[in-house]
């Protein structure tokens, strides 16, 4: 299996929901206002249905005051998933 095939079998995961609650139960609207996006986009990201751009990913990480890797992980997909 070459490097390209390995890359294709990864997916973007995030901890936005957990981080919101750890950050004083921040609402989706509050996070959306800080990141400069709509609440629908935060919902779509939490559900794993939208992969944000790199600038937006950095803005979200900055809103939580954590590094990018703490919010987003690019992990391999297991065959059972």
């Amino acid at each position, binding site marked *: 299996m070459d490097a390209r095939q390995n890359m294709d079998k990864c997916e973007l995961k995030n901890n936005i929901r957990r981080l919101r609650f750890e950050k004083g139960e921040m609402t989706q609207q509050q996070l*959306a*206002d800080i990141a*400069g*996006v*709509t*609440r*629908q*986009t935060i*919902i*779509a990201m939490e*559900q794993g*249905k*939208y992969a*944000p*751009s790199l600038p*937006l990913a950095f803005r979200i990480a900055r809103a939580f005051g954590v590094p990018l890797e703490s919010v987003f992980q690019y992990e391999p997909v297991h065959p059972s998933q």
Partner: protein
Amino acid sequence: MNRQQKIAWFQLAVIAMAAIASAAISEIYVYKDGLNFSKAWWFGTVWPVILGIILMTSAPLLFRKKKGQVDFDERDLTIDRWAARISYGMSYAFLFIICMAIGTTSGFDRLIPTYWLARIALGGFIIMIAAQALTILLCYGRQAKHG
């Protein structure tokens, strides 16, 4: 439901109402005034189409942005671009298929009446708007069900 979804629903509603109004007015011209179908259709579609185009192009003014709130971001832009690509693709496919169908049935060296050109252009326009609105609604429906 966000502003883009409201505009999309509005455009679909305008198309549906314009189609119903065109059909009703054309029927009146045929049965009351005794016009043949081509002329009745031509006169019957003029006002609903003009009104429909005015309403559809003024949709962004009817559904105004809320002040101080982000209502369009990178995800909306992505969906908007998808909808634009699909709608242009669909309308050009329609125009190509219609031209080929006319050429195949009537002969490629024949001329067609000018009112057919207006019908074909109108069909392409309606398909473009409808495809754009449907793509927007489908993309939002699939990507964020709790918005």
